[in-house]
């Protein structure tokens, strides 16, 4: 009984979670209140019935529905082709490329796409040589093209995972029964895909509905503006706070509805980040040429913009871009924003998960624990530009919001990264306790010692990964800095946007590659520094 005198002066279990909840409440709740408060002084109906705003709301839905349909419909044949061709050189590389959209900033990919599909790009040169009308990447076409570029691979990857989970016995049975391709599709492949359809469709719809960077760079004007971009324009160009607030409220309500829909359709699909490795075998003996064609076209579509980016990054302007003082200060600002937002997101994520784990495992309150985690997804209901509008209104009476740009951008970006951090950490945090909880309790290990000895060794890899993802997202984000940036304070995405906007195409290409390299460096270095060696 030697240890009985040892009293445990450890922080209580609810402390980390409460700190995180407080932080989220301050960063998201206060701006939201400011927004609602401001709205009470506005003639909402007048602003909503304004024809321009009506048009914007319609277009937001229209482009999101079209983007979702195109992405999902094109992803199905690609996933089928990949599942029927389990072995070819570069298959894994290609599939990993599908999830690279997490690391490649949207605006960088857009620069690559413009250099392929733009006015003087490869595609239009081809069209001209065969005497066809040229294709414009600006407007609805470009928005759809870019949305498909980002979301079709995401859908294909999730469909493929579902296809690869089909038990081998089903395929063998199909062969024994002599089922033709059409029946195999109908009875084996289609059910696997259909089960993922609602979840993936609503996920892509939500992403496209709130898409900011793509619409801002490729759309614009009365004919191709979404609510997100209209809020930005109202706030930054028209100084029309009434319109900004009204649109922000509409966006808030619509996003809440989408969020509810996501939950009722089971958002499980979105969790499929890791892929399962099974000894894979195909039971198809024909159709290789068609499969090859589909995979080839998809690979070209995804790889060409990135390849073009690198091919044109070294141009006569490269040296002056790299040495320009603006570039240098943007690199520094972006790095600071990325690291601070990443650290903040990871800290909030760990806090939430540790307390949620106590609720779920020790206190047996699984649903309360899950509700606690859901708080971290607040950004899905309050998209960045809406949150920015709230912060703008909240802080305007007290401070020069443009001087505080970096701090505000860090706050918004950390909330944007939080859902990813939570998703990465949830499994490992639970796992680090599930099997050993009673043992941990009976040995009386808590607080800091438990963290250092039992949690950290198991969690440092997922923490490193989530820090890498969060920082990379923050480094590549345009939405928050677009609202609060200025001539004085820019980050790389904003600088890149300005260079695209002023048609300095070559300078933009070089800047895009610098931003991409910064993101890749953050992604790999943070994982290595925090998580330790790969496979250690």
């Amino acid at each position, binding site marked *: 009984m*030697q240890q*009985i005198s040892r009293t445990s002066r450890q922080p209580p279990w609810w402390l980390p979670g409460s700190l995180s909840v407080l932080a989220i409440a301050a960063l998201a709740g206060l701006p939201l209140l400011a927004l609602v408060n401001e709205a009470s002084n506005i003639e909402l109906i007048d602003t909503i019935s304004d024809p321009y705003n009506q048009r914007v709301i319609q277009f937001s839905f229209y482009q999101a529905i079209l983007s979702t349909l195109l992405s999902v419909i094109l992803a199905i044949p690609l996933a089928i082709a990949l599942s029927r061709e389990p072995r070819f050189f570069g298959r894994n590389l290609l599939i990993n490329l599908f999830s690279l959209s997490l690391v490649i900033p949207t605006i960088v990919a857009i620069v690559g796409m413009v250099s392929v599909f733009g006015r003087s790009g490869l595609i239009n040169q081809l069209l001209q040589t065969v005497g066809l009308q040229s294709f414009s990447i600006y407007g609805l076409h470009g928005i759809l093209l870019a949305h498909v570029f980002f979301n079709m691979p995401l859908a294909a990857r999730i469909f493929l995972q579902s296809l690869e989970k089909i038990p081998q016995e089903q395929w063998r049975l199909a062969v024994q029964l002599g089922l033709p391709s059409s029946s195999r599709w109908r009875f084996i492949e289609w059910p696997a895909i259909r089960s993922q359809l609602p979840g993936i469709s609503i996920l892509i719809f939500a992403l496209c509905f709130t898409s900011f960077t793509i619409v801002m760079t490729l759309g614009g004007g009365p004919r191709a503006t979404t609510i997100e971009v209209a809020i930005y324009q109202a706030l930054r160009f028209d100084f029309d706070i009434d319109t900004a607030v009204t649109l922000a409220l509409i966006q808030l309500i619509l996003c809440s509805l989408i969020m509810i829909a996501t939950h009722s359709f089971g958002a499980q699909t979105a969790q499929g980040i890791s892929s399962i490795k099974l000894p894979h075998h195909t039971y198809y003996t024909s159709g290789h040429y068609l499969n090859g064609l589909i995979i080839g076209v998809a690979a070209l579509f995804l790889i060409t913009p990135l390849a073009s980016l690198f091919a044109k990054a070294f141009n006569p302007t490269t040296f002056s871009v790299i040495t320009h003082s603006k570039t240098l200060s943007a690199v520094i600002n972006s790095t600071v924003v990325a690291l601070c937002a990443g650290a903040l997101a990871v800290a909030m994520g760990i806090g939430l998960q540790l307390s949620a784990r106590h609720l779920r495992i020790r206190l047996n309150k699984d649903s309360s624990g899950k509700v606690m985690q859901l708080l971290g997804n607040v950004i899905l209901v309050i998209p960045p530009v809406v949150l920015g509008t709230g912060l703008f209104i909240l802080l305007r009476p007290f401070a020069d919001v443009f001087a505080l740009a970096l701090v505000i951008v860090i706050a918004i970006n950390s909330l944007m990264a939080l859902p990813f951090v939570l998703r990465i950490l949830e499994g490992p945090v639970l796992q680090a306790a599930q099997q050993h909880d009673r043992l941990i*309790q*009976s040995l009386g290990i808590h607080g800091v010692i438990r963290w250092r*000895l*039992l949690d950290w060794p*198991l969690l440092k890899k997922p923490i490193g990964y989530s820090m890498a993802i969060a920082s990379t997202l923050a480094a590549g984000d345009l939405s928050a800095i677009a609202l609060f940036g200025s001539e004085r304070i820019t980050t790389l995405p904003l600088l890149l946007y300005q260079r695209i906007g002023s048609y300095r195409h070559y300078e933009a290409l070089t800047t895009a590659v610098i931003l991409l390299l910064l993101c890749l460096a953050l992604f790999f270095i943070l994982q290595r520094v925090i998580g330790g060696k790969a496979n250690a």
Partner: protein
Amino acid sequence: MLELNELRFSFGKDAYQFDLSVDTHSTTAIMGKSGSGKSTLLNLIAGFLKPGSGDVQWQQESLLSLPTEQRPITTLFQQHNLFPHLTIHQNLALGINPSLKLDQEQEQQLRQSLDAVGMTGMENQGAISLSGGEQQRVALARCLLRQRPILLMDEPFSALDEATRESMQALTRETIKNNKLCAIIVTHSHHDATALNANTYTLVNGRLDSPT
């Protein structure tokens, strides 16, 4: 003496009431089908669960107000007794001091406990490299290091293969005898009870039968 007095617990539509009195130096086996509440009984004694009413007393003093880690109890679980990412030394040291700071004497005790379970000199191996039987031996060594008079065992041999099981049973029996422990094992196997020379109770319909 360890006594359970009208110790009641209910979960959903299952209700239990335990009355039991065992000697300070004795071995008791609680038998029963899976789902009969054997583990619930151990969890109540160890403090993982809070009873609805009744009392758990050790040497005439109630244990209910003590947090789990301060009760005079140590537990050997069926599996997952060791943290796989830590070394054997670290796993054992956790039983003495959760901050892993040991003095010379404690280091000595740690080595002796490994000798006692036949794992001499294996301190620096990682727990992940051990077989199921070796893991249970190390876990038993940690139970000894904790110097608690009551040893609770929850199906400690069920995850082992037959040959390993027999040697582990013999080791456990000797350990209980040499350290004069009050041991309670829950198991679904008569062989476990016989191998430990235990007084056997059966758990039926949420109550304990008198010894057979």
